[in-house]
């Protein structure tokens, strides 16, 4: 297991072993199931470099998001989010209609639309297109959906060299690593690991200067664009009214991948639809500011069909692969709201847990708070029992979400589903039911509080930490509790109750 960058960046260089080859990107996102978060999370929280990188970067992005959205939207911010949420919700509520509209309009514009119910179908369609095009070299821009379908190894297997062109994804591919953030995929890596990967894989002179590293990648990838006969992209939005595919990128690789090769294939999940350009405009205004703090991404590329006869440049063939792959399961009324997500990454940046454990700890393509919702939906709740639970429910994600997905509410809903489906351990179910029962009557509640106080204070007396003085304030401290409470005392001390409870005070006042 190598979810953290230290392994991929420090181990190999000293031993002479190629750095990063020990990291298998596939295993990071597709671990053996059921997946237990503890091992990776514990390792990540102990990794100072990961904390330095991920924590600092996400915190900075979160601050930027707040500054930029408040400067741009001001008083209107709440209404903007409401509108963004309403647009996505309306489209999802009538998704069949908008899919039909999109397909009709895209087809009229010359796009070949394909329908894939699962990853295997999506990949098969793409491989078929690649074969027919006689493709030898594929340039690919960032797409979470192709991570989901694990497309790349399959293209490589039929002899199509496939190059990730987003700088971060390119580096991850060279280093056999996997993305850990839906917007900034290599947030967990440092420049040294990039330098070594470029030296090892590209034969480039070793440099740690980000500007020089970027230029090395630029030169390398330009040659790929020049020769590529297949371009693959994702899609941030699909516009039903016009049949357009929209991608939002900053580097320009997205435009290259969708314009330079003769054939362009876009992999897009069905939840990406919006009704019209006007609705697209609202989503664009929200997306970049929430995601990276930019007014718009540098390149917002609206593509409506392949190259027209009179145009120069652009693909001769444009394909859109519409993907279900579990989305219609989430589309049910109880969970539909989750599909509003526009993958801005704001919830990851705002999440205290993500900041401390990094994306690979989630053991899935989609990490962070939104990943904790949709991963169990996509891949089975019983396979990811920790994801809905490893959250303090602090609500920072909900506050950050530009389309107002009530993430804490749905985390609790998934927890309830775990209880009702008995995925929750029987011992936990017993404890909570007993606890609830004792809270259900005044006398058992009092008895429970009294017993807890007695036990804690006795322990503290034994430990010699019990302070005496104000009966409503002075307390003792415990640092080694048994059972599940040991999780508490492994990290911090546990205060004991003071000698007397509030109720005792109230009674002593002879109040009614």
């Amino acid at each position, binding site marked *: 297991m190598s979810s953290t960058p230290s392994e991929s960046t420090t181990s190999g260089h000293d031993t002479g072993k190629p750095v990063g080859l020990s990291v298998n990107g596939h295993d990071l996102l597709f671990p053996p199931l059921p997946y237990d978060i503890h091992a990776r999370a514990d390792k990540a929280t102990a990794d100072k470099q990961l904390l330095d990188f991920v924590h600092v970067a996400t915190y900075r992005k979160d601050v930027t998001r707040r500054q930029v959205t408040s400067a741009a939207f001001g008083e209107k911010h709440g209404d903007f989010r409401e509108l963004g949420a309403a647009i996505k919700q309306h489209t999802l509520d009538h998704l069949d209609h908008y899919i039909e509209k999109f397909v009709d309009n895209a087809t009229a514009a010359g796009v070949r639309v394909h329908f894939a119910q699962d990853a295997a179908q999506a990949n098969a369609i793409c491989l078929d297109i690649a074969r027919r095009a006689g493709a030898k070299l594929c340039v690919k821009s960032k797409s979470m959906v192709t991570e989901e379908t694990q497309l790349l190894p399959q293209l490589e297997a039929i002899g199509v060299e496939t190059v990730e062109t987003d700088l971060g994804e390119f580096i991850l591919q060279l280093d056999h690593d996997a993305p850990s953030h839906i917007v900034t995929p290599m947030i967990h890596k440092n420049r040294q690991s990039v330098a070594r990967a470029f030296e090892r894989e590209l034969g480039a002179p070793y440099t740690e200067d980000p500007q020089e590293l970027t230029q090395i990648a630029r030169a390398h990838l330009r040659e790929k664009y020049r020769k590529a006969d297949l371009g693959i992209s994702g899609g941030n939005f699909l516009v039903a009214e016009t049949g357009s595919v929209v991608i939002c990128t900053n580097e320009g690789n997205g435009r290259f991948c969708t314009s330079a090769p003769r054939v362009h294939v876009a992999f897009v999940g069905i939840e990406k639809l919006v009704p019209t350009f006007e609705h697209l405009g609202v989503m664009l205004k929200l997306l970049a500011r929430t995601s990276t703090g930019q007014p718009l991404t540098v390149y*917002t590329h609206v593509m409506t069909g392949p190259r027209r006869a009179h145009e120069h440049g652009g693909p001769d063939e444009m394909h859109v692969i519409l993907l279900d792959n579990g989305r219609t399961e989430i589309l049910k009324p109880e969970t539909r709201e989750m599909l509003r997500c526009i993958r801005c990454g704001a919830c990851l940046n705002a999440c205290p847990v993500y900041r401390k454990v990094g994306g690979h700890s989630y053991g899935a393509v989609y990490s962070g708070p939104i990943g904790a919702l949709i991963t169990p939906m996509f891949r089975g709740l019983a396979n990811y029992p920790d994801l809905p639970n490893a959250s303090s429910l602090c609500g920072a994600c909900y506050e950050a979400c530009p389309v107002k997905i009530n993430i804490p509410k749905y985390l609790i809903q998934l927890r309830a589903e775990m209880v009702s489906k008995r995925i929750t351990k029987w011992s936990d179910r017993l404890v909570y039911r007993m606890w609830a029962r004792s809270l259900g009557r005044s006398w058992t509640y009092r008895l429970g509080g009294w017993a807890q106080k007695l036990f804690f204070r006795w322990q503290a007396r034994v430990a010699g930490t019990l302070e005496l003085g104000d009966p409503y304030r002075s307390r003792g401290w415990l640092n080694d509790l048994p059972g599940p409470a040991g999780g508490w005392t492994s990290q911090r001390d546990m205060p004991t109750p003071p000698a007397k409870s509030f109720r005792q005070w109230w009674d002593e006042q002879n109040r009614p």
Partner: protein
Amino acid sequence: MSNISDTPASLGVDRQTFLKPVRQALGRISGQAVPAPPAVDPQLVRLASASEDVVSLFAQRAGEVGMTVCRIKSDELIRTVSELLEKVGAKRVAASVGSLPQAVSLNDSLRRKGVEVVDWRATPGFAEQYGLDAGITDVHAALAETGTLICSSDAGHSRGLSLVPPVHVAIVRQSDILPDMVDYWARLRGIPGRELPSSQAFITGPSKTADIEGILITGVHGPGQVFIVVVEGV
């Protein structure tokens, strides 16, 4: 190599099979009516209005995202562009500025100064453009609120000139500048029967990345420098 039109049935499923679980999840039947989508109230969505000095706002916002803006009069255009190219040391350029009256004289004037002006139409795709030092384009519109250039593809405009060369010089007429994106959609809608271009690129800054340690680098795949020449009064 096959053409798109003669590819056989896709390896996925057909449209109605695909839509079945969608309708099931929604509890909808095929062809069931759909209420109007949420109204996009321009009052709410508009973040810049025509009452502002849109040229100044555009110049300011474009500057904020890292593009270099200068404002000139119409008769200064050729001199300004030549000077910009000289400044960046561009020897080989291509232009698609068909919407400007100065298009022909600009090319001639650049050639007289010893700049090679390449005809990008001569070869398909981007082949001719990889070796260029700069691409010169007009724009289909510009958005003041975000400092955005909109470059669309058509017979006179390649997708590449604002992307492939390391320097992009964009010539923006004052009349191209719209206050807000809502105005662009309104304008697009106001052209009935117009076929959409295959590519509309909204460009807001030079090519950028912050993938390596969050450090901002320009000129990753697209141009590292974008110069905007705003021609006032036209």
